[in-house]
């Protein structure tokens, strides 16, 4: 299978000169296309930091991250923004959406940044919102949506840019279990039907149970990695 993320011995050290904090400590990681992977660990174990490094939001103190053959640690800040736009989908814990835009506009927005034609944008927005079960909420602003619905719009938006993979940092942390299950259902369906790669962090056991691969972080280092697709 194709390796889409290849992280070589990456570390992120905060305050290297005073009291160094190894938020990510010498992590070596391969992610293949089609994975449905959970990043697990207690609060402060480095999940967010690692996801930020994999998503090109942050730069490692040492090591490098290769995505689809591109070493993103070598990109300039502005190249990195563009790289994220075209290659990586993001779902954050909350406040993913632009409050003044409707659900449909929020999803359309990312394609607009990609200069996708109006016709294609319209088609994809309709299809994607239907896919996340929000066909009837297209013209509603985020404030009128429930937390779970907002996260589903965020998933639709992440998908809209046709990314290589989607990173989701604790996407269910602010959701009740019904909404969390529904969100996971949608993510799993997208993973199975469209082979979309998902990497999500969580410390919710019900969410962990849904993952095919579970990577456990403690103090910034990987302590276990189960269900890993065998490397060739």
């Amino acid at each position, binding site marked *: 299978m194709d390796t889409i993320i290849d992280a070589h011995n990456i570390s992120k050290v905060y305050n290297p000169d005073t009291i160094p904090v190894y938020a990510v400590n010498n992590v070596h990681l391969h992610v293949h296309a089609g994975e449905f992977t959970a990043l697990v660990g207690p609060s402060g174990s480095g999940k967010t930091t690692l996801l*930020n490094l994999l*998503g090109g*939001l*942050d730069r490692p103190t040492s090591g490098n991250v290769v995505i689809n053959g591109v070493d993103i640690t070598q990109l300039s800040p*502005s190249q990195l*923004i*563009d790289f*994220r*736009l*075209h290659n990586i989908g*993001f779902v*954050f814990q909350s*406040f*993913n959406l*632009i*409050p*003044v*835009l409707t659900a449909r*506009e929020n999803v*359309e*927005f*990312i394609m*607009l*940044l*990609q200069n996708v034609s109006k016709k294609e944008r319209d088609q994809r927005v309709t299809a994607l919102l239907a896919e996340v079960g929000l066909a009837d909420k297209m013209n509603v602003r985020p404030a009128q949506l429930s937390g779970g619905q907002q996260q589903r719009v965020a998933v639709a*938006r992440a998908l809209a*840019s046709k990314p290589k993979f989607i990173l989701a940092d604790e996407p269910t942390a602010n959701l009740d279990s019904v909404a969390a299950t529904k969100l996971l259902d949608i993510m799993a369906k997208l993973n199975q039907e469209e082979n979309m790669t998902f990497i999500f962090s969580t410390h919710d056991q019900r969410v962990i149970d849904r993952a095919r691969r579970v990577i456990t972080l403690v103090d910034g280092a990987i302590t276990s990695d189960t269900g890993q697709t065998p490397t060739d």
Partner: protein
Amino acid sequence: MLFTLAWRNLWRNRSRTLITMASVFFAVLLSVFTMSLQKGVWDNLTKNVVSFYAGYAQIHLSGYWDEQVLDNSFAYSDSLNQIVLQQPHITGTTPRLESFALASSEQSTKGSIVVGVDPEKENMVTKLENKLTDGKFIQLSDTAVLVAEGLAKKLQLGVSDTIVLIGQGYHGSTAAGKYPIKGIVKFASPELNAGIVYLPLLEAQNLYGAPGMLTSLVLSLDDPSNLNKVVSNLRPIIGNAYEVMPWQEMMPEIQELIRTKEGSTYIIIGILYLLVAFGIFGTLLMMTAERRYEFGMLMAIGMKRKRLAWVVLVESLLVTITGCLVGVLVAIPLVSYLHTHPIRFSGQMAEMYEGFGFEPIIPTVFSPPVIIEQTVIVTCIALVLSLYPLVKVFTLNEVEAMKR
């Protein structure tokens, strides 16, 4: 959609947008108003003071202003007068022959200015006839005089009484004459009121033994703002034999007074600018802080800083321009109304003004340059401050911004 985004962001926090707009609006309105009013006050003060006596500019024989004696008078010539009148912005000339003499009655004697004038022309400059409180105004052909009220009282003279004038004439001759008083004039300036006598010009030339001579030719202008142009234009034309003096040179103390007043107005306006700047900056600071996470999120999902900056800039421009436009649209009719209907005040201030012979009004100038200047200044301040969110956008770290 970027414009839509900017537009909707304005409505997102309506009160903040309105506060920012209102700051710009009041800044434009107040600065235009303050400046127009101040300029009106200075112009009015100048007009009042200048029309006291001196006029906006005078022509003398070279050296007269430093040594104001009859021997420094010059022969009036029609050709000189014609040359002066042909110059642009000069609408008229008023001749004077002015010297010092003792004015006496049977009871008393007092030194005073005795000035020969062409009464009709004098009215153009000083509106002398309006100052008449008793008797009649003099004609050029009269052999009668107008006496200032304070002087008449001191000499215990009234209309139809006779006043005796004794002084030194041209080139050492003796000047002495006896004239009936035709009218009493009242001056706001205590100095003038206590010691000035007006004679018809020809009679004054007779009295001083200086036929055809003048000490000064007072210029009337179409618009006081052309004064400097007129003076610098006239100087080379009439040559070194004469001096052309604008009122600022004849009355430097008034020029000084206006300068200090101008200074304090700039301080007031400066404080106004500062207040407005803080008001606008405060709302921008709030806005930027509130949207920090959102800016970070937008950059995280792949929005280039430039595009984000564009959205924020459009928001600022919409607020600033709307505020300025409404400000100007309200300021123009306000200033124009106050120009035609000047503020009239009463009480002590009014009495003081009236005491000086001024109308107790604060006229407002209606001057497009003033309006444009103030609007541009406020707009620039607002625009410079709008750079703050832009700077934030360009320096924001997306990971830090999204930490909560």
